[in-house]
């Protein structure tokens, strides 16, 4: 009986949480686009999220691409299809690994930073101060972050895609004995526009989720430094899970026949 009550309680609080996130997302989207837009803040966020995530995204993409080429070489070797390595590498990177790995890395960096910053502003009454200065905190804090992250993640993923394919290329040409020109030709010949575009669509969705979770948990944090710490952890965990879940949903929506 107590167990059932417990399950019921957690289910109810889960529903309440879903409701709160949805309302927050609605307001965030509204204030991201409804004028006036704080261009300075948007620019700041574009740089903070986009430019400063480049090293992280580039490095992870490079290593992932290299490892991928090696493993696919081994796998295809078992059925004597090593020539498919370039095609499978670029296929996997553009459709799945590029957007997912880049977004997970950005989630760790950016949603944590957003939750910590907004959370600190909440517990030190800076958000209250914004309101008394006739400034809407959604417009000032949440809107620019959500908009910037949604816009910039596809660009980051595109860069990551290119670097990931390069990682595969280096592995294949330096260690696996592929010829450079043949590798590039195979990469391009069998690549379809939809591979890249679907990855970029995913990236935009993941970017939205990253900023949403960072802002949501930061905005609701309470109770001093400990509360901000909790908000930061929750932001990273929830945005990572949501990225993987959304990846499944989007893949099904786009590709299930």
């Amino acid at each position, binding site marked *: 009986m107590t167990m059932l009550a417990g399950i019921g309680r957690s289910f109810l609080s889960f529903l309440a949480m879903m409701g709160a996130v949805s309302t927050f997302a609605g307001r965030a989207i509204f204030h991201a686009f409804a004028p006036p837009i704080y261009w300075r803040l948007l620019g700041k966020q574009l740089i903070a999220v986009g430019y400063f995530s480049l090293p992280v995204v580039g490095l992870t993409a490079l290593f992932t691409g290299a490892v991928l080429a090696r493993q696919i070489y081994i796998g295809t070797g078992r059925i004597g299809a090593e020539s498919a390595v370039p095609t499978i590498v670029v296929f996997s990177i553009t459709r799945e690994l590029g957007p997912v790995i880049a977004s997970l890395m950005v989630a760790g960096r950016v949603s944590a930073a957003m939750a910590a*910053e907004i959370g*600190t*502003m909440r517990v*030190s*009454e*800076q958000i*209250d*101060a*914004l*309101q*008394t*200065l*006739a*400034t*809407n905190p959604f417009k000032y804090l949440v809107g620019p972050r959500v908009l910037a992250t949604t816009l910039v993640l596809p660009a980051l993923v595109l860069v990551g895609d290119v670097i990931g394919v390069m990682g595969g290329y280096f592995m294949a040409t330096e260690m696996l004995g592929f010829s450079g020109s043949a590798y590039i030709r195979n990469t391009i010949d069998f690549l379809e526009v939809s591979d890249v575009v679907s990855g970029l669509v995913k990236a935009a969705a993941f970017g939205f989720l990253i900023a949403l979770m960072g802002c949501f948990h930061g905005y609701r944090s309470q109770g001093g430094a400990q509360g901000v710490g909790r908000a930061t952890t929750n932001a990273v965990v929830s945005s990572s899970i949501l990225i993987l879940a959304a990846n499944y949903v989007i893949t099904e929506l786009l590709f299930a026949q």
Partner: protein
Amino acid sequence: MTEISKISLRNLQKRFGEKVVLNGVDLDIAPGDSMVVIGSSGTGKSVMLKCILGLLRPDGGTIQLDGNDIGTLRQRERNALLRHVGMLFQGGALFDSLPVWENVSFGLLGAGGISRRDAKDHAIETLAKVELDAPTADLYPAELSGGMQKRVGLARAIAASPDIIFFDEPTTGLDPITADVINNLILERVQELGATTLTITHDMASVGKIASRVAMLHDGKIIWSGNASDIDRSDNPYLNQFIHGEAIGPMRPDVSTTMPKETY
């Protein structure tokens, strides 16, 4: 009362869960008054201010600023009203991602119609009024001492020439000399603006210096209010205990939330 109140609270109620904080607060502040609200720690003085500013939603009662019931205002109207209101937060609440001058001019920049260069000039002028020099304008709040942060907070509160200003414990945590300097600054700036003010404090020196009217909050209600000159002549035992800072009297420090029931 013939004159219309600048700030008027009627039967203001606020509770957090089971805990009743404000239980029917009535308060009227006439234009030009310097009202000081005193009361023990945790009696809900800051909560009362946050209700007036619309940061907390009251559970009951009405709040009027300049004759407008703030509970019924739309966001846009409320923002228009807030542009004539200044607030000094208990903890400063300076924006730590912005330099001092942008903190001071934040309201002006938000209202629009002013270039960043002019806003900075205006910030430097305002900082001079709280006796901070121009180089301070480019520092960040984390680089300031507590007393300087209070001054910047004060500068931010007065920057838009508001006609209502709220001060939440402007002198708490400062040495007596700096506290006196802040009190003087408040007095001068408020007189210059002709603003109506509501100050919260436990600091009796502050009360003596800046108050024209005094009200005491206890147990969720205003239990005494009157002219500042009358507080020493009151026979209210709560007020007497508070202004003389005695542990023995009708009020006990509130320990009920920290001490488990069984130990009684």
